[in-house]
């Protein structure tokens, strides 16, 4: 009998307390972020329109990958580090500082990496953003911080093809390949010339 009334008492008591809590919640800050209207990319921008207690994205947030090709040395470490093969890099043997546009100006004019690493130029740098799982292993592995995560996270497209991030355009690729061919041809010519000279020398020696 005691338990019977205890049940009733506890029932009312706990319901009373519970109702006071849910009523109290009506007077605290609303946490909903009205996303497209509120810019959540940093803490400052989120604070402009939003009154709740959630944070914007921090600086090291892992968003869509970005590649700074002027830093990239085509070492392919990121490609090897990626556990799901969403990065693919092709390269040609060509010093990219020597690349010139149609007018003849150098395409790149600022370099930070060592001389020895400039010998290769990327002709294809594709990232499959649809497959990328934003684990950050590529960015951690990169020796020159060429590949890194941005704060960007919106990427609505109509097709899966559009989700492939191509960092080297077709003309850049063609240019690099042409230059590489030129360099190769030059080198071959030089070699042939050297060989010829050698031959000539040899002949001369024979004679």
């Amino acid at each position, binding site marked *: 009998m005691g338990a019977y009334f205890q049940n009733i008492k506890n029932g009312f008591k706990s*319901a009373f307390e519970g*109702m006071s809590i849910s009523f*109290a919640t009506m007077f605290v800050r609303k*946490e*909903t972020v009205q996303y497209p209207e509120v810019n959540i990319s940093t*803490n400052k921008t989120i604070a402009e329109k939003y009154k709740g207690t959630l944070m*914007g994205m921090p600086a090291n947030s892992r968003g869509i990958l970005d590649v700074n090709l002027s830093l990239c040395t085509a070492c392919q470490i990121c490609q090897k580090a990626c556990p799901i093969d969403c990065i693919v890099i092709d390269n040609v043997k060509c010093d990219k500082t020597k690349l010139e546009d149609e007018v003849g100006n150098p395409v790149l004019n600022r370099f930070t990496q060592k001389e020895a690493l400039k010998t290769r130029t990327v002709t294809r740098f594709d990232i499959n953003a649809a497959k990328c799982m934003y684990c950050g292993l590529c960015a951690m592995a990169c020796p020159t911080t060429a590949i890194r995560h941005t704060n960007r996270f919106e990427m609505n497209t109509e097709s899966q093809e559009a989700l492939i991030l191509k960092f080297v355009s077709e003309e850049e690729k063609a240019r690099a390949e042409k230059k590489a061919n030129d360099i190769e041809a030059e080198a071959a010519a030089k070699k042939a010339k050297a060989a010829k000279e050698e031959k000539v020398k040899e002949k001369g020696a024979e004679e």
Partner: protein
Amino acid sequence: MEAILISIGLEPIPAKIISMVIICVVVLLAFVTIGGVLTWVERRISGFMQARLGPNRVGPQGVLQWVADGVKLILKEDLIPDGADRKLFAIAPYFCLIGVFGTMVVFPWGKGVIVADLNVGLFYFISITALVVFGVLMAGWSSNNKWSLIGGMRAAAQIVSYEIPVGMGLLVPILISGTLSMGGIMAAQGWLPWDWMVFKSPFTVVSFIIFFIGSLAEANRTPFDLPEAESELVSGYCTEYTGFRYAVFFLSEWANLFVMGGLTTAVFLGGGNLPGVLEDYTILSILVFLAKVSVIIFVVIWLRWTLPRFRIDQLMDMSWKYLLPGAFIAFLGQAIYMLLTQHLPIVQSVVAVIMFLVFVFVLIRFIIRVRVNIREQRIPVNSPASDVL
């Protein structure tokens, strides 16, 4: 209404018919609108109780959300599952609708604003709302879905069980007022809180609580929403419904909420009673009534977003072991109390005022708890830091 039509030169019989049609349309539209708006109200309040915003896009503060939802539901394909009992499946939602909308006949909108003040008003009210259980059971059975069937069975068991405590709870006000008519019960109360039926004696308080819990169960509201318990039965009896039929189920559910609030207000909370000087202002009476109904609806919504749900055996225990004995005791107690204080109206008034003061005391306790809880929730978190962008 009839008088107005006659005064503009219509014959009495056409005037009666036209006025009836007009009243029907007005009340029906009022119910549909109320049901619709209540869906928005519920979602909005639940949002606030969870530190969210709730729907706020369609119209100012999202108040037209229900229209958008309704249009969307009406435009949806009307699916009838394979193997369903097509006739029963098609007709089931309308039983729910009739069960709820039938109550508008005796719905006391205010003092004297009532379509038909039947002398068996309360009895009619309870009987017609029992139609809802047919609709739910038919929906559950005809859907050809085992979850729906369990939901329908639960609903039948639950509503049938809870009819009894609700009826017993209503006996106490009937005992006091000596009538079954809505108008009569309202007239037996005054406009001051201690003249309301609920504060008349300790027994009326008990019977009010029992009636309130019982009508929660009849309206299938949490903690008694077992027929559609979404975490157990997916969506219970309306799992297979889409489109307009689903909309009808929902409309009747929220209209039922309003009906339940109206009944509670009329029987226990003094209805649309006004102080003597203001008695002629019918609009004011309707407003007072609606204000009280909104409070009840708010409490019901509030309960839903606070409490977990019972299990079916606990639900039955609650009805048969707690509510029913309580209702009997309240009924007997009230009868004895009335017999003892028959010639001592002063004692009755003093007891009523004491009951009201107890209520005020509980309310103050409650407000103190709310303040404490607000303070706890406002402990700062994530305060701005300088070196995070």
